[in-house]
């Protein structure tokens, strides 16, 4: 069976493309599913973390003596219990520093000590008895303020990278990056119309419903186990081992069910703390974050400040485009501006383009990934400017975009030349969609925007075991955050030629399977899916071999068709087909267990594009915006389980709606977060949303056997811009600050009057 990943474009699917019930559905709706906080162990202690009340403070000393005397306290750890094992690796050191503050607390909520006690009440009381001697330092939380020469410098060993000459003074600007091609200045001189605008976006949290939780158990022999809610348990194992100086093989990590991640659970937050507490207490320790901790101590997105300038000829051809993007990464070095700078103009075919990104450090929690990280903010700024330019040229925004859209052979704004891509198809589908021409009422506006995301593959390992009764036990190493177990079952069933219900998929622990990269980058249906298909083909090869044994013919004389081994032709002999079930039943006498495996670096995920259309109505008295209608059009390559693809499209749009209209980290002058809870940080609820309509386009990815492209992230890229364009059209004022909360809309209306 060749390991050929090229898609068969004429293939008719039996199972892939259907919409069966999800295998984890019953457990989730009945409460049987075990999430991070559901793990228990005999003798388990409660872990709690003491966090800095200051945005920036030197820690002169920590006195734990009173807490240690409290009955029921079994272990207390501080920075002194976590020696630096990073061997000079800055990224590892920063993770250690983020897990537990060292010489300074760098943001409100930064961990400074942790307690393991017999109950939550004792642990809380112990935290109150820990005395931390802080020297409060000046702080900065705004990205623009942090770049100013007189801003308090947060790290005295960070010098701006990517500038010449190399700076001799430390700075909060960690890195400058630049992308583009052509001669932008010459392009602007050619332009008949130039629009130049500045935009701001506020930080948002991924808002997953399940808080971070883990249960750690470290034995006196140094081996440990960790049950954790994460998007990447292999990553958690490797990083935690490195931070704690453990051998990787001594730590076994099991991923729990996950109540949302969206990128926020692709990082290590408090898992090494739980392990260190367990190691010191010699008891299992469970740590569950409160919502307050989730907001203050786990990663939100960057807040940003972006300048965009685009010039076009009267005929609607863009001749030059430029963006300066400033992204704060929280208290540590990030590469978030890189991603904004790379994605900003990726939808367009531009002769002259330049983007410059600045990664900036501020006194906020470490920025984390959030679905297509950094792209939504860049798209907001660029797509707003594109819309304004279209209006100024007297062109329909959709036609202006179609005229300038990237296509196969376009040199992308971040460098490489595109192969076959779907931006044109999504724009054409949007232009022809009934939503685009539906009538609008008073105070209503329509907006549209495009979005881009890279998608990627990564390291992947999958095993497929054939059971005695012909059912299939499929093991993957990528936590299921979007229904991927169902998709894996569909692809295994398709390849083997058996019903979907005969395949069950589990997320195996780190000791049961080879390394798998994190579930991120919209990679799982692409890469774990491809590994599953190739593991199934490996198993089919073995099944054919077993059938050959049973018939007494050569392996090459056996073919596999729709769940049956058959003689390849008349010369192979006359044998009735053998079903997978029959071959499985005879496995013990034909060579033992039958299994298929595949491990690889999955490359060729293929870039992804989407176009969104939205109608809004703005209440001019209150400034409140209501979403009336929303349509997502996106290329899925091949929709393995169309209902989940639609769910990803809808989920991205819903989160984007929250980001566009309400969600915002609000900081006080004291550098403290003012709204660390879902009452004051308002994510959309069902009553805020219309039914989000979806259009799935299927332009096969040539690098996947079924043509699959990732779909999980791109759908959050256009909403900020699409809604900003809709609101701007509704109120007649260009909105340049996200979220467009009622006060900002009222202020914009007042400014106009």
């Amino acid at each position, binding site marked *: 069976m060749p390991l050929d990943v090229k898609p068969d474009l004429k293939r008719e699917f039996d199972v892939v493309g259907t919409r069966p019930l999800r295998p984890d559905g019953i457990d989730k709706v009945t409460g049987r599913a075990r999430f991070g906080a559901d793990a228990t162990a005999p003798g388990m202690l409660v872990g709690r973390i003491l966090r800095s009340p200051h945005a920036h403070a030197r820690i002169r000393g920590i006195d734990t003596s009173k807490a240690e005397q409290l009955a029921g306290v079994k272990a207390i750890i501080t920075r002194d219990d976590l020696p630096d094992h990073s061997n000079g690796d800055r990224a590892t050191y920063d993770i250690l520093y983020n897990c537990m503050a060292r010489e300074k607390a760098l943001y409100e909520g930064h961990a400074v000590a942790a307690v393991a006690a017999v109950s939550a009440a004792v642990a809380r009381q112990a935290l109150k008895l820990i005395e931390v001697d802080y020297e409060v330092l000046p702080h900065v939380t705004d990205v623009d303020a942090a770049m100013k020469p007189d801003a308090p410098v947060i790290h005295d060993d960070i010098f701006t990278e990517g500038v010449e000459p190399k700076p001799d003074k430390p700075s909060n600007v960690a890195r400058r990056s*630049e992308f583009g091609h052509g001669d932008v200045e010459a392009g602007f001189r050619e332009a008949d119309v130039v629009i130049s605008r500045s935009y701001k976006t506020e930080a948002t949290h991924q808002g997953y419903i399940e808080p971070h939780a883990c249960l750690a158990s470290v034995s006196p022999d140094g081996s440990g186990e960790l049950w954790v809610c994460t998007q990447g348990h292999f990553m958690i194992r490797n990083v935690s081992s490195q931070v704690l100086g453990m051998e990787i093989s001594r730590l076994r990590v099991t991923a729990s069910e996950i109540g949302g991640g969206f990128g926020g659970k692709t990082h290590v937050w408090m898992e090494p703390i739980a392990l260190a507490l367990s190691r010191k207490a010699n008891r299992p320790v469970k740590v569950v974050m409160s919502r307050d901790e989730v907001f203050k101590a786990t990663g939100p997105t960057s807040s940003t400040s972006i300048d965009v300038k685009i010039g076009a000829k009267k005929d609607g051809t863009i001749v030059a485009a430029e963006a300066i993007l400033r992204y704060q990464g929280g208290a540590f070095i990030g590469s978030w501006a890189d991603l904004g700078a790379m994605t900003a103009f990726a939808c367009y075919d531009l002769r002259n383009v330049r983007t410059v990104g600045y990664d900036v450090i501020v006194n906020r929690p470490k920025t984390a*990934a959030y679905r297509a990280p950094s792209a939504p903010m860049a798209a907001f700024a660029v797509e707003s400017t594109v819309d304004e330019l279209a209006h100024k040229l007297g062109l329909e925004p959709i036609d202006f975009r179609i005229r300038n859209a990237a296509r196969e052979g376009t040199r992308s704004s971040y460098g*490489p030349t595109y192969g076959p891509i779907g931006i044109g198809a999504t724009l054409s589908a949007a232009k022809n969609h009934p939503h685009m021409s539906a009538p609008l009422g008073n105070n209503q506006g329509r907006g549209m925007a495009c979005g881009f995301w890279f998608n*990627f593959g990564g390291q992947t390992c999958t095993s497929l075991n054939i059971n005695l009764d012909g059912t299939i036990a499929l093991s993957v190493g990528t936590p299921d955050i979007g229904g991927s177990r169902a998709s894996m079952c569909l692809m295994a069933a398709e390849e083997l030629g058996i019903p979907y219900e005969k395949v069950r998929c589990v997320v195996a622990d780190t000791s049961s399977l080879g390394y798998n990269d994190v579930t*991120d*980058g919209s990679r799982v249906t692409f890469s774990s899916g491809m590994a599953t298909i190739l593991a199934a083909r490996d198993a089919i090869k073995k099944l054919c071999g077993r059938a050959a044994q049973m018939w007494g013919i050569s392996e090459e004389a056996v073919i596999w068709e729709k769940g049956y081994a058959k003689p390849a032709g008349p010369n192979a002999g006359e044998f009735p087909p053998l079903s997978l079930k029959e071959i499985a039943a005879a496995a013990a006498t034909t060579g033992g267990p039958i299994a298929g495996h595949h491990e690889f670096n999955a490359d060729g995920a293929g870039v992804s594009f989407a176009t969104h259309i939205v109608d809004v109505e703005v209440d001019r008295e209150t400034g409140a915006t209501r979403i009336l209608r929303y349509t997502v059009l996106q290329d899925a390559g091949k929709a393995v389980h169309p209902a989940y693809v639609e769910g990803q499209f809808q989920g991205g749009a819903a989160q984007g709606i929250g980001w566009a209209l309400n969600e915002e980290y609000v900081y006080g002058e004291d550098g403290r977060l003012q709204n660390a809870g879902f009452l004051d940080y308002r994510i959309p609820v069902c009553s805020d949303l219309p039914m989000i309509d979806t259009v799935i386009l299927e332009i096969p990815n040539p690098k996947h056997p079924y043509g699959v492209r990732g779909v999980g*992230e791109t759908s959050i890229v256009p909403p900020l811009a699409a809604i900003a364009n809709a609101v701007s059209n509704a109120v007649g004022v260009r909105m340049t600050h996200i979220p467009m909360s009622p006060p900002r809309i009222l202020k914009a209306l007042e400014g106009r009057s």
Partner: protein
Amino acid sequence: MIGTKPQGERVRVTLWGSLRSAAEGRDTVEVEAATIRELFSRLGKSYPGLKPFIDRGIAVSINGQIFRDSWSQSIPKGAEVYLLPRIAGG
């Protein structure tokens, strides 16, 4: 198309802006390389300033397809090769 190529072909590599200062201010550099592994090895030797970036993780785009970890990937003759930041995802 990605395929095999004989040893010793010169590969023209385009650098993203941040790398230029680490490569004597050049936008593009040329090295002999048949695979991504050879490319990184020779870039690191010819332009030591690039070594810390390579160690930290760089993606390579070959004819529009982005590779993150496949260092054995061959680089065909005349391929369009870009170095890109290693992309994070959510």
